[in-house]
């Protein structure tokens, strides 16, 4: 019996000890529990980084916002080429250029994705910083900065898509409703105005690449300048006021060298208002070398990065430059040579010549179309995820001057006054190095202003907005027929977004 008792005890002890171990806790080692984050100022700064770093993916990405602002314009085209490499991508660039916007188009989807990711990230970080127990001086400034960044992201989305969903509160998990462009405009305007006081006024290395007062003023200026076209309500005076706010800050002026703003070392440019900082070691980002150069340039710049021989300027756009205009050096035209003076060759062995004329949208020659060297090319970029160092300019002071001039002209029914002419001439004189090519009240028309904007802000992602505002978006140009209606002035809402939010309805015409 004793033996049996022993056995029973063994059995029971065993059963009890076994059944008690049911803990399924998860131990995190290489990631953090978000409940334990945002504890101090340093962690809040690190969190803020998530919101800002989304910009890097979209600002310079051809498959993103940059592509949707650049390719459908008259200043650039990505043709199919008969020989050598080219960017085919199943026709997405042709579709974009011809304004055949499809809701499953990759750059359009990316543009939506990254704008809203920035906004969502801002919402989340604002919420966490707000409720974090950490106490530090900069807290309200950080929140103001993030709200401005969020407003900028919504501004980009409104520019591209018109009728967008807006959410301003991370705690509100309801599906956001879709606002018309007019409603979105008011929300964004209010956000920018409300948070201006807490932003930095003086640009410095301490806030380089982040939201400052000048950025907020510039975005408001852009919104007011476009209010006529977007809302039907002109707000020219307000646009002038915002431009004046930037000018009156006193920290910005035109660089004497146009190309300074686009150099590898452009951090100290006094003209740049808002940039996306890039660095080779970021591994992604600004890849103009890949977009526009021909592979023969590999040894010239000691680059093993692939070159896709993709984007060219259209002939008409290039022809709009006067030969004395220093800005014409943005372009690579004519026979191309390496460092020792030997001509570079195409893949068929003929000399590589970049000609302004382009054979056809689907039948371009290997060297057709001038290429862009506005952004200084670095040396030694490797395939191992190295991209260009040049910080990418989003807004700069030259644009402010031209915007103020335009607003004045618009208020005046299309004719400039002397103030407007002087503003434009500041840009013009910097561009020519002398005042021989200045405008006068007689010669400065709205069309001329549009052309000057084109030459000054070439390939900076601003042309689309300008063409729409000046009423030229539906015109015909190289490779693109004229359009009978205006529905392409906003992009279709991407097909992968509509199903997930039933509050959204597709934009008209799509």
């Amino acid at each position, binding site marked *: 019996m004793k033996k049996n008792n022993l*056995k029973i005890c063994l059995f029971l002890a065993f059963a009890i000890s076994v059944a008690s171990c049911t803990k399924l806790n998860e131990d995190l080692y290489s990631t953090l529990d978000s409940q334990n984050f945002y504890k101090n100022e340093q962690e809040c700064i690190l969190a803020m980084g998530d919101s800002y770093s989304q910009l890097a993916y979209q600002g310079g990405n051809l498959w993103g916002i940059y592509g949707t602002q650049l390719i459908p314009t008259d200043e650039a085209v990505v043709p199919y080429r008969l020989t050598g490499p080219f960017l085919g991508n199943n026709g997405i660039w042709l579709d974009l250029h011809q304004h055949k916007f499809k809701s499953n188009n990759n750059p359009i989807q990316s543009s939506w994705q990254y704008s809203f990711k920035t906004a969502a990230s801002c919402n989340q970080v604002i919420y966490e910083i707000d409720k974090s127990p950490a106490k530090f001086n900069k807290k309200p400034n950080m929140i103001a900065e993030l709200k401005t960044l969020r407003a900028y992201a919504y501004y980009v989305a409104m520019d591209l898509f018109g009728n967008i969903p807006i959410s301003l509160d991370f705690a509100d998990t309801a599906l956001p409703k879709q606002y018309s462009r007019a409603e979105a405009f008011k929300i964004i305007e209010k956000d920018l105005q409300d948070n201006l006081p807490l932003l930095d006024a003086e640009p410095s290395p301490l806030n380089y690449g982040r939201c400052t007062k000048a950025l907020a003023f510039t975005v408001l200026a852009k919104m007011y300048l476009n209010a006529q076209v977007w809302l039907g309500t002109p707000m020219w005076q307000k646009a002038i006021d915002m431009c004046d706010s930037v000018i009156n800050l006193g920290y910005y002026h035109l660089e004497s060298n146009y190309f300074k703003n686009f150099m590898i070392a452009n951090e100290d440019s006094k003209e740049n208002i808002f940039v996306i900082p890039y660095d080779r070691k970021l591994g992604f980002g600004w890849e103009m070398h890949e977009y526009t150069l021909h592979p023969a340039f590999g040894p010239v710049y000691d680059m093993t990065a692939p070159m896709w021989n993709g984007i060219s300027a259209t002939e008409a756009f290039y022809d709009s430059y006067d030969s004395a205009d220093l800005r014409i050096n943005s372009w690579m035209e004519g026979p191309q040579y390496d460092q020792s003076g030997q001509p570079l060759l195409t893949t068929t062995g003929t000399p590589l010549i970049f000609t302004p004329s382009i054979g056809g949208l689907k039948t371009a020659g290997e060297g057709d179309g001038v290429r862009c060297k506005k952004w200084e090319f670095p040396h030694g970029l490797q395939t191992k995820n190295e991209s260009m160092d040049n910080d990418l300019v989003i807004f700069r002071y030259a644009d402010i001057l031209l915007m103020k001039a335009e607003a004045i002209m618009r208020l005046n029914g299309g004719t400039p006054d002397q103030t407007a002419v002087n503003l434009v001439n500041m840009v013009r004189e910097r561009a020519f190095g002398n005042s021989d090519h200045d405008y006068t009240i007689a010669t400065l028309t709205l069309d001329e202003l549009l052309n000057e904007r084109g030459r000054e802000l070439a390939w900076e992602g601003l042309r689309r907005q300008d063409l729409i505002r000046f009423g030229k978006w539906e015109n015909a140009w190289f490779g693109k027929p004229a359009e009978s209606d205006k529905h392409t002035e906003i992009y279709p809402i991407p097909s992968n977004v509509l199903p997930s939010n039933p509050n959204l309805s597709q934009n008209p015409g799509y």
Partner: protein
Amino acid sequence: MIRKPNCRYILFGACLLFLMCTADTAVFGHSINGVKKKNSMKDYYNSQNQVTGLVTNEKGVPLADVTVTVKGSAKGTATDSKGNYSIEVGKGQSLVFSYVGYEEQEIKYTGQRVINVQLNVSYKSLNDIVAIGYGTTTKKEVTGAVTTIKANDFNKGAILNPIGLIQGKVPGLAITRTEGNNPNGGFQILLRGLNTLAGGKQPLIIVDGIVGANTLDMLDPNEIESVDVLKDGSAASIYGTRATNGVILITTKRPKIGKVSYEFSNQLSREVLSEHNRFFTADEYRTVVNKYYPDLVQTLDKGYSTNWLKEITRRPLRQDYSFSASGGTESINFRANLYYKDDEGIVKKTSAKTMTPSLFVSSTSLNGRLKIDARLMYSFIKREGADNNNAIFQAVVRNPTEPVYDSTDMIHGGYYTEITSSGQLNPVAMINEHTNNIEEQAFAGDVMASYKLWPTLKLNVHYSFNSNQNYEGTYYTRYYPELGTNGDAIVSTAFNHNVLFEPGLEFNKMIGDHNIRAMAGYSYYENQNESLGAHNYDFAVEDFSYNNIGAGSALGSGLADMGSNKNSNKLISFYGRVMYNYREKYLLSTSARYEGSSRFGANNKWGLFPAVSVGWRVTEENFAKNLKWISSLKLRAGYGVTGNQDIDNYLSLSRIETTNRLFYYNGEWLNTYAPASNPNPDLKWEKKGEFDAGVDFGFFKNRITGTFDYYSRKISDLLWNYDVPVPPNVYPTTFANVGILSNHGIELSLSADIIKTKNLLWNSTILYAQNKNKLISFSDAVRGYKLDYLEVNPVNGTWSQLILKGQPVGNFVTPIYIGLDSAGEAVYKDFNKDGMIDIGSQDDRAIVGNAYPKFTLGWTNEFRYKQFDLSFFFRGVFGQSLVNYERALYENWKSLLNGRNIVKSVLDNPDYQGINVFDSRYVEKASYVKLEYITLGYNFKLKNQNTLRVYITGQNLLTITNYKGVDPEEPISNFDLRPAVNGAENLNYYPYTRTFLFGFNINF
């Protein structure tokens, strides 16, 4: 919820049964029932009587060592060498005669003085042991769908991985080699169709109680005794959330009791490429250029003739050695094994060398009450890896008129390089200037102790561990094509270990004719991974390779990378099973597992997985005993629920991770910390409910045997990444359980001993399986997860497959090519008749095929003539389609102009001037039949029951297919439903080969 099984199959089964019962057949064999005699007074007083007799087999040959027992008592004896026995038995008692390999017989004593018995050979495999998880049973008692493959039925030849031993042998289990004959390649295993979209597809593999697929790399295939595959829900459900993809139980050989015996095996094999030329040879290339682009002859024809694939391949030798010793007594016995394998791949600088010693010891003590089995395995593997197989792709598409070397081009290391075209890399340089070495050590073991608390109750404690570590170094020299820097090194190390602790109880009782076996237990499983990696480049000196990684100058410039990671997960469960049978005629088995996994969300940590199955051994019924031509017939049916928890760790949590994005703040670059994903506290396992009905039959004394299964499985709570609006979410997708997928099909195996004489045996086996898959839904609008279709798997920049609700997964949907226009561009059918062809839209596309097969077929034949044995196995997969990526990318003139080689089939349609598009031309039917192996062996007769078998084998000698690409055995996972990053990755293949092998086994 039980799905209604297809009525057709039930009707079929019922008719079959009816026919069998009404057929009148002659009586064969021996009547077992004795004749009842009236009890006489004399017998009544002689209660214990001596009975003697002779036991023989059906040929009249006396059988020695037959166990003779008096039923219900401890009395027993055995027949002597002449087959005679003598025993005392009382009135009303029965004598039981049993002998391994023979049918047991029971004879009632009613006063006979002599009882002679003729034993019949046991119906093949009925008493075979079948592993069913947490125990074993016999084949005749199994009620779930379990397929058992014994060692002699394994695939023959040079087997890279033990899974290859059963490829094609288990109906419903589709095994594909993912990388041809790469010694470092693996297998993709799909059981009964596609059962998940985003979860893991691997079945649970347990080798002798040790969990983890890495054990397969350690295992000596010669040591495997049997492989049991738990296929349906009722059989696999005992393993809960790991069971949906099936459970493969591998049992190795047990020690032989007696004096120490030895086994030694050796195999040597050679391989040759088995692919056909899809691209032009140098001469063909020249002819084509001269004919179609005569003005480009100067630029395209470089003047040489190079067979690039030949330049990077070799004639490899593979060797395999296995040595085991086993012996011992009842109270302690052992089996020790040493295995060495040296596997050279056909591509240069790819290989794997494995050394695995292992030891198994079993001891019994305390009067047989305590039994302890312990196993230890250690393995050391050294591998040389191919560089993502990219060199092979580069070789195949390279211009054959280019030379391999150019001694004047020292910038590129003396390799011929075309600088005007990027992406075209010299494959010889890629092989020579790249090194990848991996060293793996694994150490695994398990202990099973069982203690008999009472005669009916056993306490079992099972503990196992599996720990492995690897160290990997990769180096590219400065001459590696388009490297762009002076050397690049990566070093990484990973450590993984898991631990399993399973105490349990086993109950076994016979009450009259009722047999009850029950089992219950607790299981604790923990797995932990740790890894470390470093990357540096720009080495001034090449000679270090990756062994001095700090020497690269990128480190000083802040451009080197390093990272480390650790993660873990736990699985805890309570499980139990009851198996009941009445006279081994009516069978019932029911089990349940209550399991929790750390991977699931806080709201769904635990789940219950029940199963029930029943069986009816019709041949045990009295009415059936007259139908002598049916030697065994069992009907069975079962339903079980299993789960799939094969997802990454921590997905349900709200986590902050460091991203690779940098943020410029106050003059310095900082790491960004961002939410890793949208948290999902409702995250749970994918659930499969499966109904299976089957028939196991044998006719004519099991000359013909087979099984038939019908199954219907429904998988719900399918995981997928759903687009969710941003904001309010931070991430654009949430990993959530939403969809429903179904598979149903039939499996059939039929085996016949067509000829069975003393000298000649011919057995033929046919296996058939078919499966139909359907995605029932993957949307739940109420919860905000809406998805109507998915366009996936890009080829040439556009999607190739459409996943649509209500359709099977894997449909290729393409624009339909109808001809060329005057400019040589492709013209497509305008389905929606709107005058426009939008090739990216579903409206102008149609279904042209499906990536999953309609049915699979296997046919094995075994011949034995005296000492010779010959067997061969054909394996066929039918009804599937594949994208021929080579044609999609290289069947056009543009690629020729870009400097590449192009496929010969471009001459079938030379007017085509288009560029890379994707349409119906490139989706090909890929049904195939392969002669997996043919082997011829000779068995020498040695004295003392020693055996020696010598054999030669040819593997993969023949492939019959209409598919024009490399090899139609493309793993389904290449069509992974997660959108492929780059369609061209699928062009990186490792060549398939024909193997010729010589080997021998000797037992002494």
